[in-house]
């Protein structure tokens, strides 16, 4: 499964944990791509996380087992950190396609006015930051689907340039 689709699962988890801010970091590594998603939500309990990673039905942590399989299966790594507040999921992928991150982001277009989603991407070619609070400044009315189509195109285009289809 493409990295962008795992991202959808992770952002859904953050939203279900009532996060006010979801931070997505994508970076180019020597031999792959790393993804980190952190939030300030209510977090996940250790036993819930263990259940989710065993593939049992758990109230939280959806898609984590699959993410672990994709990341570790590609020769990369996976870790999920628990804090007092919030959750951090880090995964490193080798040779897994990034996919269309813009397509994944606009799935959350209705949540963005309430939950801030920030995406930061860094590669050797340069960097890019998307912040849902700045949609109206850069793209137009965030409550309109047309605006989100612009966001999608921009994010897809810039990330494809930065990561070169990695």
């Amino acid at each position, binding site marked *: *499964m493409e990295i*962008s*689709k795992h991202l*959808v*699962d992770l952002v*859904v988890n953050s939203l279900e944990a009532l996060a006010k801010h979801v931070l997505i970091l994508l970076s180019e590594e020597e031999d792959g791509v790393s993804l980190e998603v952190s939030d300030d939500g209510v977090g996940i309990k250790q036993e819930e996380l263990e259940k989710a990673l065993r593939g049992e039905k758990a109230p939280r942590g*959806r*898609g984590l087992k*699959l993410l672990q399989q994709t990341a570790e299966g590609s020769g990369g790594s996976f870790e999920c950190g628990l804090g007092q507040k919030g959750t951090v999921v880090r995964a490193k992928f080798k040779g897994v396609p990034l996919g*269309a991150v813009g*397509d*994944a982001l*606009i*799935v*959350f277009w*209705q949540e963005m006015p309430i939950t801030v989603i920030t995406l930061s991407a860094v590669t050797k070619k340069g960097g890019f930051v998307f912040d849902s609070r700045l949609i109206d400044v850069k793209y137009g009315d965030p409550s309109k*689907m*047309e605006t*989100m*189509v612009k966001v*999608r195109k921009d994010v897809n285009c810039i990330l494809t340039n930065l990561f070169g289809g990695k």
Partner: protein
Amino acid sequence: MKSIADINAIREEMQSKVLIRDNTKEGETHVFVAMGTVGLQSGAVEVFNAFVDEITSRLIKNVRISRAGSMDVKDQPAAEVVLPGKAPVTYVGLTADMVKVIVEKHILGGEPVTEYIVK
């Protein structure tokens, strides 16, 4: 260089292709796309984006596309279409091409596409 007449002809042709449905008074049509983990693997993001493309490129008004949880339809992208005042219709095994048909026949035409409906 195109003449004014050419441009007008193109405009008329385009306008006839674009169907505008403004149902402000009747309320909104809702499309819920299932975004369960299994749905994601089988193309739910593509289906969501196909609805967005179809609705925005045809300038259809008052259709809200939202993500939904898993719809319990086994390994296939699914979506629920709710027209104002009508019962929800659930479609399964969706592809981008099927989304075009649903927008044309159900969302614009008001008639559910029976062959795609979950049995």
